[in-house]
């Protein structure tokens, strides 16, 4: 491909806060360029996962190539990558951005700039990407188009006149956006005559072709049958197939500098083709790899156990299969006295955790018991050993701990000014450091804090929403590890410690926290034949107690001829119910008990 050809390529993403209309704009562009036939067209076309379609959110970034006939009479090749908006998946945005020269920034005309708008803009600017700012949903009666333009102009430092207006729903302004992509976003640079260098920005797994690497070719060219190497994972492979996204895989003869496409590698493990790695030609050993980027790091860890112990193998299989398409998922086997054999699984966040759970239960027909989630700690023991601990029962005794470090995050919140006080109060509650206030409009601010990640984990967003009557949005990003003063909170059931109920908390709020835990347990553990004593302990000292008194009545008054069958059916049901519970000694503990902190109603 010549430099002249490169001029007619635009690689770009659509970035926005969750629900601001990315996937809908992608639909309109696809329709306009007829990349997909009318028959195949459907809403949010690029959201292909069942879960995405059901929940109406994008989980995984997807790419599509389109041919756009521009007003200047030329045909342009658009490579569009649709990205997820939810904070759990923001790493997907970073890697999608790394494959592009520019991005369309969408802002909802009623909502205005939100926390993730800002976060994504920062990511794009860090990569020196050009932005086309667009106000979307201008058709809505609640649209505040001019005010929102003002916000965008303020944050991006651009002239409000450059900001486009769009209704992705009605189609108004779509062509304007496409023209801006042509005229304002740069064409890719790159040299077809140089040695091959292609950035792996995503991957998926195909039964026949193994790992499919999604690449942005930076220099050189690649065709089917070429030998390739991945310096990061030190793997050699063959390009079984090269192709483009239509959005389905469509083989082509070759991919050249500036283009986006896929390479079927035949590799069996997604770890052998990590995103962020560079794809080089086999033999080009001296070629320098591209900068790449950090792989996604799980932030939340939880024990995942099969409800029926024999399902352990199926659970392993399920996790292994999901990981083929989800490099952010980590897992290690572990054993619990109460729950048997399971895994400690690392997730990007609670949404990711919920999605993985749902997929395991649905696609692999498993019933799962999950523990309360926690962050991962970095510990140093007295003998100088450094380790990471993602499981409460593995946190050593204080007597054997030199240092514990916990992850901190940069938190940004966008909220109306009247709620600044409430937000500050919430941030204080999670031990956060108060940071800056930036005015987006006279009545809306962007607040920045540094907070322990553990504080954000469980219900911070819900609490933020209720403290701001739904008007706040948030985003966060891992920033650093800091020394922490944490303790393990243990729960004893009738005197027996139950490992799967332990959690880690900061020392100061430990007592309060463990009290809250045993109180929640008292509510979820049903009354049974024998009384249940619940104790919360810190370092072996009991600091909280609750009792579940024994039942007094559990019998049907009458049991004559016709009642006997009914009675037996009831017994069978009771027995099945018991099977679903986990037994500790004589006590039956329902599954919810192990993730009691996630129960919002408690």
């Amino acid at each position, binding site marked *: 491909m010549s430099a002249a050809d490169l001029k007619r390529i635009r690689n770009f993403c659509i970035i926005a806060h969750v629900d601001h209309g990315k996937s809908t704009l992608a639909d309109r562009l696809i329709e306009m360029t007829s990349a997909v036939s009318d028959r195949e067209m459907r809403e949010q076309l690029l959201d292909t996962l069942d879960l995405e379609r059901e929940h109406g959110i994008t989980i995984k970034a997807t790419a599509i190539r389109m041919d756009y006939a521009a007003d200047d009479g030329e045909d342009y090749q658009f490579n569009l990558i649709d990205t997820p908006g939810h904070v759990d998946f923001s790493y997907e945005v970073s890697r999608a951005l790394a494959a592009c020269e520019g991005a369309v920034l969408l802002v909802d005309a009623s909502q205005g700039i939100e926390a993730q708008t800002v976060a994504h803009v920062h990511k794009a600017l860090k990569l020196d990407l050009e932005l086309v700012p667009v106000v979307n949903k201008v058709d809505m009666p609640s649209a505040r188009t001019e005010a929102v333009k003002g916000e965008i102009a303020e944050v991006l430092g651009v002239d409000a006149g450059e900001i486009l207006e769009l209704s992705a729903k009605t189609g108004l302004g779509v062509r304007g956006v496409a023209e801006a992509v042509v005229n304002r976003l740069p064409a890719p640079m790159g040299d077809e005559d140089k040695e091959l260098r292609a950035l792996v920005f995503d991957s998926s797994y195909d039964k026949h072709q193994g790992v499919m690497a999604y690449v942005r070719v930076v220099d050189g060219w690649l065709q089917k049958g070429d030998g390739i190497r991945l310096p990061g994972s030190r793997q050699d492979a063959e390009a079984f197939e090269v192709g483009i996204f239509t959005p389905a895989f469509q083989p082509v003869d070759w991919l050249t500098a500036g283009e986006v496409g896929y390479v079927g590698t035949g590799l069996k493990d997604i770890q052998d083709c990590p995103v962020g790695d560079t794809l080089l030609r086999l033999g080009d050993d001296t070629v320098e790899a591209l900068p790449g980027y950090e792989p996604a790091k799980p932030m939340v860890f939880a024990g995942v156990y099969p409800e029926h112990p024999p399902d352990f193998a199926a659970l392993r299989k399920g996790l292994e299969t999901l990981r083929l398409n989800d490099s952010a998922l980590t897992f290690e086997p572990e054993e619990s006295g109460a729950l048997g054999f399971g895994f400690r699984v690392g997730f990007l966040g609670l949404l990711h955790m919920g999605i993985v759970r749902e997929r395991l239960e649905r696609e692999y027909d498993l019933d799962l018991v999950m523990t309360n989630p926690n962050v991962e700690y970095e510990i140093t023991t007295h003998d100088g050993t450094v380790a990471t601990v993602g499981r409460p029962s593995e946190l050593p005794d204080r007597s054997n701990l030199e240092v514990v470090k916990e992850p901190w995050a940069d938190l940004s919140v966008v909220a109306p000014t009247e709620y600044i006080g409430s937000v500050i109060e919430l941030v204080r509650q999670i031990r956060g450091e108060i940071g800056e206030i930036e005015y987006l409009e006279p009545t809306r601010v962007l607040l920045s804090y540094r907070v322990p990640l553990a504080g954000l984990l469980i219900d911070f967003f819900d609490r933020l929403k209720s403290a701001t009557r739904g008007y706040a949005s948030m985003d966060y990003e891992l920033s650093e590890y800091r020394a922490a003063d944490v303790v393990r909170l243990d729960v004893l059931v009738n005197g027996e410690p139950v490992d799967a109920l332990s959690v880690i908390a900061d020392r100061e709020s430990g007592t309060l926290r463990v009290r809250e835990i045993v109180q929640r347990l008292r509510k979820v553990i049903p009354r049974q034949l*024998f009384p249940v004593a619940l104790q919360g302990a810190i370092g072996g000292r009991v600091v909280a107690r609750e009792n579940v008194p024994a*039942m*007094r*009545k559990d019998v049907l*008054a009458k*049991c004559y001829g016709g009642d*006997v069958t009914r009675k037996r059916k009831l017994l069978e049901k009771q027995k099945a119910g018991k099977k679903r519970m986990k037994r500790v000694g*004589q006590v039956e503990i329902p599954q919810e008990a192990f993730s009691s902190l996630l129960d919002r109603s408690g």
Partner: protein
Amino acid sequence: MGMAIDHHRLGSPVPFRTDEPTPVYVHVPFCAKRCWYCDFNVVTGLGRLTGEYLKALIGDVAGFAKFLQSPRASHSIYIGGGTPSIISGARLRALLEALTAAFPPVPDAEITVEVNPTDATPQLMRALADGGTNRVSIGVQTFDDTRLAELDRLHDGDRAAEAVHLARAAGLASVSIDLLYGLPNQKPDHWEADLVRALALRPDHISAYALTLYGAGADARATTLGGTPAGDALAGYYDLAVARLAAAGYEHYEVSNWALPGHRSRHNLAIWQGSEYLGFGCGAHAVVGRRRYSTLRMPAAYLEARSSGTSVVEWQEDLTDADRLAELIATALRTADGLDLEHLRGAFGYDLVAQREAVCASLQSSGYARLTADRLTLTDPGLFLADGIAAELLPE
């Protein structure tokens, strides 16, 4: 073991013992008015069908006996409902005669008829006695007139007491009354007053049931009336019955049943201990061999089947050993005799104490059960938890 029975057109014959006396249950579904809390197989406003029903029933019973060829003795006969006493004395007597002819009662056979206080007259009681009845079960429910009205009952407390006297006067050997506790608006004092009044009548047998609400309709009604005590509160009512009745010399021999010595219901005990039993009429249950079945619930359907000679069976199942063991544990545990551990080992190969060691230990230490070499029996507090305990005692 004798011949196969299929008089009720079960579809497949079932081996049937002819050597042992059997309990026989007969269902009379008619009631004058439906009480809102009632969960029995009951119809109202079909009084005109009673004559025809009785005729069909007698034909059914006689046909069954004929089918058996060699007669089988009855261990007990129980005519329940519904309201059997809604039928005239003369007809009841004819039914009793047909039953005793078909299934000759053993010498000490217990023959029970349920009587609604509304129907109690000297004539009725005499007809029952003449027909061979030696036990009546009178549906008192409560002596509290306000509660009776709220329950949709058609009699008052005095009428209920009167029924007991009439039964005694007719020479019926064993008189039982039914009481209900945990009624809407029933305070503990009210319940205590009921117990005092019941004891003053000195019936031979008292059934005291916690009101059980089946279905949303009953729930809603109870709520409208003012709600019923639940769980712990209800246990207080039970405790009161346990204490009062024990003090008056009654033996607590089943969760909801108390008797003066020699007056336990042999019919029901046999069923709780896993006996076979026969059932006649609509919505009656029977267990023959491993087969459990029930007959058509609707009187019209039953009449139709009888007259056309088609099957009267509405539902049936064959019990596995595991089913029978589960049922035996669930029902026998309700009785004062409890579980016969040797029988569980011998008949089912189930060594309960060995396999349920920890549970047995906890049951004993918490005062819910007593364990001897050959029996596990529940205490009074244990009986009120019998279902939960049964679930713990089943094999894995």
